[in-house]
């Protein structure tokens, strides 16, 4: 047996055979053909026919909207204009692979040139091109593999398009060689309560069919386990299921210290799932979705309708709404115009709202109106606040427009370090651990090359959280956590030990976090937190905390 390690997502444990996701096809070499144009053309004809047939078959299995998209992709594969372009390139001496690659690339450029709706089809073309070239090369098509039996998916990383196609009935667990705890794969896994270990060195050496035990809580992948190990994995899974089977109740530590568990929501569609999971309110309502497809900001009336619906879903409970957070990874056409070299460090969050203040005023007006009519406890916060002056600006404008409880997100190290000053002004703080990690470690969240630095367990990040926790305690004000970190059950305990008073996460994670909190007293949480902040990096912080727990049991 071999044991590989990485960052686990959640508490799951799964046993099953590996199925590798094929890597993207490399660009075909531009060496001249050795079999002549007729032979190359025949190869293209066969490859296109079989790729198109395969795409259509997938469409029939998927049905609905997906089938229409796949049918359009099949048409692109056997398109006559594309085919004549391929044939011209072959007549000029290219191999079938190279001609297909170049012809698709030319159309792709053209679509991108047109832009808008048409530009978005460029990725479809890439997918089709890869499939045809894979046929020519006689290798498996890229993308999530099909299988009749359940499997453990092993991949370099998953793209959003891949994750949307995952058949959760068949995927027992996901293991990736790249990506950190905030990668798309990790977020999806958390959202779907799927067992996953990401950033596993050596994962790509696992061959198809090899049996593995994937243990997310331990962050380990054991290949070729013995029968004993398989049996104990099975027993462990049952034990964990039993421990996680805590009745829905308000979040609390073992000694009864309450830690309200709140839901992160991105639209009003998630209300039912959050309530069903026992969410005690909403800790982060992202309002971007209202604006994503809009070419201009939605009206006060339109926003009011959405906010009213949200607040009705949580009558008598706390609902924390974040005003529009645009920029960097979520540009909005009517707000973020200028091209910036480093958008994550640019005009985003509250900064851009200040420039377009009317949009902020409209949003606060709509929120105040919905809040006044509801018996939910509405809190409103601003994203990407870096200074006390920005805090003062936001709190003043929020009060002016009728918001009673106005706070800020702590995502920038400067506001964590000055948390005491910030909380002199703001009614509460909510720590966005994803961005706080990105800015503390100077590692772009969107770059795979630095994803190993994107670890919210890093003691530097935890020390900043501690600053905010101390300031909150001194002021008697709420310090929430609303990043992915709160959904990691063990890290959630550490964060409470550092002074977090509420935790907000995707509803699917609430059950596991509730169960883990009940295992530790306040005193133990503080001790675990102390061990974590004394470590030298994220990995050793995690190990120190685990060692302390297993020693204590």
């Amino acid at each position, binding site marked *: 047996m071999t044991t590989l390690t990485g960052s686990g997502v959640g508490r799951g444990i799964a046993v099953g055979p590996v199925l590798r996701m094929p890597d993207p096809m490399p660009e075909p070499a531009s060496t001249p053909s050795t079999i002549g144009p007729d032979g190359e053309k025949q190869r293209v004809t066969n490859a296109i026919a079989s790729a198109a047939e395969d795409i259509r078959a997938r469409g029939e299995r998927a049905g609905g909207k997906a089938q229409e998209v796949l049918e359009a992709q099949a048409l692109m594969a056997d*398109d006559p204009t594309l085919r004549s372009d391929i044939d011209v390139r072959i007549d000029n001496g290219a191999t079938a692979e190279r001609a297909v690659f170049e012809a698709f690339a030319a159309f792709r450029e053209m679509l991108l040139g047109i832009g808008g*709706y*048409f530009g978005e089809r460029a990725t479809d073309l890439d997918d089709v091109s890869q499939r045809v070239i894979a046929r020519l090369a006689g290798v498996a098509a890229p993308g999530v593999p099909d299988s009749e039996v359940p499997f453990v998916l092993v991949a370099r990383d998953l793209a959003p398009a891949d994750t949307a196609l995952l058949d959760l009935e068949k995927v027992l667990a996901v293991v990736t060689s790249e990506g950190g705890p905030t990668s798309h794969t990790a977020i999806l896994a958390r959202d779907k309560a799927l067992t996953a270990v990401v950033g596993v060195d050596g994962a790509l050496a696992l061959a198809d069919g090899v049996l593995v035990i994937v243990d997310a809580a331990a962050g380990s992948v054991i290949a070729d386990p013995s029968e004993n190990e398989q049996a104990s994995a099975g027993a462990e899974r049952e034990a964990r299921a039993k421990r996680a089977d805590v009745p829905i109740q308000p979040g609390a530590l073992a000694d009864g210290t309450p830690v309200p568990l709140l839901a992160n929501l991105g639209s009003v569609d998630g209300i039912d799932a959050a309530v069903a999971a026992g969410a005690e309110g909403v800790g982060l309502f992202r309002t971007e979705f209202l604006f994503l497809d809009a070419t201009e900001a939605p009206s006060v009336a339109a926003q009011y309708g959405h906010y009213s619906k949200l607040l009705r879903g949580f009558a008598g409970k706390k609902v924390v709404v974040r005003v529009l957070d645009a920029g960097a990874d979520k540009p909005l056409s009517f707000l973020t115009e200028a091209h910036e070299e480093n958008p994550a460090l640019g005009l985003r969050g509250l900064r851009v709202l200040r420039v377009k203040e009317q949009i902020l005023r409209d949003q606060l007006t709509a929120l105040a109106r919905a809040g006044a009519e509801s018996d939910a406890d509405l809190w409103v916060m601003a994203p990407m606040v870096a200074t006390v002056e920005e805090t003062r600006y936001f709190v003043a404008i929020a009060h002016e427009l009728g918001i009673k409880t106005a706070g800020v997100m702590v995502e920038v190290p400067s506001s964590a370090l000055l948390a005491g000053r910030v909380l002199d002004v703001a009614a509460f703080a909510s720590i966005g651990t994803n961005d706080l990690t990105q800015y503390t470690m100077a590692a772009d969240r969107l770059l795979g090359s630095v994803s190993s630095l994107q670890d919210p367990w890093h003691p530097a990040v935890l020390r900043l959280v501690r600053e905010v926790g101390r300031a909150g305690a001194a002021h008697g004000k709420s310090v929430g956590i609303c990043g992915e970190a709160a959904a990691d059950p063990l890290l959630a305990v550490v964060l409470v030990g550092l002074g977090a008073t509420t935790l907000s996460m995707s509803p699917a994670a609430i059950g596991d976090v509730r169960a883990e909190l009940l295992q530790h007293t306040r005193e133990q949480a503080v001790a675990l937190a102390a061990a974590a902040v004394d470590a030298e990096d994220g990995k050793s912080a995690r190990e120190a905390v685990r060692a302390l727990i297993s020693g204590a049991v």
Partner: protein
Amino acid sequence: MPERTVVVASTHGLHARPAALFAQAAAKAGVPVQLKKGEKSVNAASILGVISLGIDHGDEVVVSVDGEGSKEVLDELAELLATDQDA
């Protein structure tokens, strides 16, 4: 060669789905069909050709058909273009 000028009705123009419907219909016609926007003319049975014209909602395009039964083919294709496929 018989032709017809049509104003495209689909809300987002001839992007993937409406373009696929149109190209499929043109391919089924069994006779060569050309689609023209401005100076550029493409084989209407080619989805990529159709998409490459970048046709937006409200654009005026010309469909032309060569051969047997061209009037019926023109009627059918013109109606397809004048219907909002995004609705």
